[in-house]
């Protein structure tokens, strides 16, 4: 048994099999089941450690050689794999309730497999190529065969493709910087190249214009998945860069730039979200705000960088899946997601609407919900350093809160004689209900994440020290 085969090749092949062989009815269960099983294996069986099960000795080898380069998943990657495939399972099971076609499940599994390969590949900067391939696989998910591609998809494809050359080339230049750290010219060039690459990948202002466009023109569930998957792996990729190149962590100009970009994204995302009249676009801006928070954490250079990052990343997956699923259920019955069209829907879709609002509040950092512990910890870090930063982050979060209140107001503006109905199916109700319970559990008992967080630190040798 080999870890890269188990967590990269197997899901990729299962995804391909579902695409070509399976009907929609079973796709969600098989895809979700595969992801859940892989998460369970990652949680229970340590990589590169022999286990004796009666007379059978079981050991998952950590690496495999492909075309002269190795793909490695070590013992430290176990908790990360469990988180990734656990969250992927939520998204894939959710397709059953969202009514998304089986292409979501198959492509979703293949995308997660490619993104996992981006963690495993050595040298790690080749991950840029795998991220690009994953981004290309997202496109058929966003554009069904009967729909023309919109501007958002085209911009997404262009920006992701632009990112790859910048990162690959900067990786080559960084090696030169390591060899001669005193060469200021090369250092600046490498820094600029790297920053541009990650600006495209992270969709940093003003390169995030495709996000709200996609939320309008594509399936909200597929776009939600994209907004979960790519930033998550981009963050891990960015942490890898920081971990391996000391000068990246110690250059104040670079960390300042990252911090400034993060704050700008948080503030602009929150403010723009509060001004929207389309519930899909609000989700897009909320995701932008969260990406900004991740950048801010990276830019703070705190000793708690790993804990803070994953304290945001794990609940983020749950918040996005609940929010996107609720929007997908609502969109299944109405023409558009504009405020004028969703007005009064709280009485006809009470479960979907309440789940949507709770997920939105969780992302705003509302107390008792999943987003609160990470925001609280982040506030402490920011407030110690700068009140100005705290103000702008507060403004962004406040913008998200205003957007949540406006959305709630629109949803409950029903005609007085409108009756309460229950239009969600049982599957939809159960899945949303479980998601909301998860949001409360992560908000009330954040220590539930502690076993994962404490085991993630060995992934990055130098960060947080």
């Amino acid at each position, binding site marked *: 048994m080999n870890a890269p085969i188990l967590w990269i090749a197997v899901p990729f092949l299962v995804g391909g099999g579902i695409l070509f062989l399976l009907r929609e009815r079973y796709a969600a269960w098989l895809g979700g089941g595969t992801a859940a099983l892989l998460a369970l294996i990652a949680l229970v069986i340590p990589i590169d450690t022999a286990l004796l099960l009666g007379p059978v000795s079981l050991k998952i080898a950590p690496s495999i050689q492909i075309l002269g380069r190795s793909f490695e998943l070590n013992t430290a990657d176990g908790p990360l794999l469990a988180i990734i495939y656990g969250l992927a399972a939520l998204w894939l099971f959710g397709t059953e309730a969202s009514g998304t076609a089986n292409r979501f499940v198959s492509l979703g599994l293949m995308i997660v497999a490619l993104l996992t390969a981006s963690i495993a590949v050595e040298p790690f900067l*080749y991950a840029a*190529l795998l991220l690009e391939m994953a981004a290309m696989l997202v496109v058929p998910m966003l554009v069904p065969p009967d729909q023309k591609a919109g501007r958002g998809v085209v911009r997404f494809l262009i920006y992701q493709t632009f990112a790859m050359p910048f990162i690959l080339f900067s990786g080559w230049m960084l090696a030169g910087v390591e060899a001669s750290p005193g060469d200021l010219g090369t250092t600046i060039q490498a820094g600029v190249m790297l920053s541009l690459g990650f600006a495209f990948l992270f969709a940093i202002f003003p390169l995030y214009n495709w996000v709200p466009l996609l939320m309008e023109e594509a399936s909200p569930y597929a776009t939600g998945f994209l907004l979960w998957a790519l930033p998550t792996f981009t963050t891990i990729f960015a942490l890898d860069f920081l971990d391996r190149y000391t000068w990246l962590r110690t250059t104040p100009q670079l960390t300042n730039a990252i911090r400034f970009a993060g704050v700008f994204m948080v503030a602009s995302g929150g403010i723009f979200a509060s001004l929207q009249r389309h519930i899909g676009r609000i989700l897009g801006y909320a995701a932008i705000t969260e990406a900004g928070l991740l950048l801010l954490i990276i830019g703070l250079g705190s000793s708690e960088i790993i804990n803070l990052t994953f304290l945001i990343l794990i609940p983020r997956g749950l918040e996005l899946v609940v929010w996107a699923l609720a929007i997908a259920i609502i969109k299944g019955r109405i023409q558009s997601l504009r405020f004028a069209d969703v007005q009064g829907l709280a009485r006809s879709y009470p479960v979907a609407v309440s789940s949507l609002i709770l997920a939105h509040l969780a992302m705003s950092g509302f107390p008792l919900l999943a987003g609160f512990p990470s925001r609280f910890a982040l506030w402490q870090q920011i407030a110690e350093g700068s009140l100005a930063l705290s103000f702008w982050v507060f403004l962004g979060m406040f913008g998200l809160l205003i957007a949540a209140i406006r959305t709630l107001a629109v949803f409950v503006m029903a005609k007085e004689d409108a009756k309460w109905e229950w239009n969600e199916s049982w599957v939809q109700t159960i899945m949303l209900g479980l998601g909301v319970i998860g949001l409360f559990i992560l908000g009330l008992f954040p220590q539930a994440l502690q076993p994962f967080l404490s085991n993630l630190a060995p992934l990055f040798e130098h960060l947080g020290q």
Partner: protein
Amino acid sequence: MVTDTVSWIAVGLALITSTAILISRDWRVSLGALAVQYLAAFWLVTRHLPLAMGSVKLIAGWMVIATLGMTRLSLMNLEQQEEDAFFPRGQWFRIALMGIVVLVAAGSAPRIEAAIPGLGLPIIAGSLLLIGGGVAHLGITSDLLRVILGLLTMLAGFEILYAAVESAILVTGLLAAVNLGLGILGSYLLIAGSSPLENEDEL
């Protein structure tokens, strides 16, 4: 000496083909120019990579062109729409744009050669011309086929430069996969929404 001369001819071809892709109204001319462009890129790539690895790029590029060409051929109803909406004017603007790209490439190639010795001036010049041509193309079009052509041109330029600094087989393979993926994606996006589905199962 002969090799250098051929390299400069390849740079000239890269310039002509990227200009042709930028100003041509006819998708057949654009795809033909892209095919020649891959030939020029192949020559420049093989200055630093073995012939077999360079061939991978050439074959992958031509496969992309075949895929896009066959798809576009089956969508003849787009002909009128494209001519009306996209290319009735602005040829001189595009030529001027390419002129700027040439000036930038001519200005920066010697400086890059000085900063990274050993790459070779024709390699850098050819690469910058293609990257610039591709980016310029992406800046002025929203047509799906032309966006894909712009991305492929930009990637071809990058691959020439990157081949000079990185010769890993895995990178060559993954870059070929990215090129093929872009071609297949372009075909899919061209087909998507152009014809009604035959039955509900396809949804």
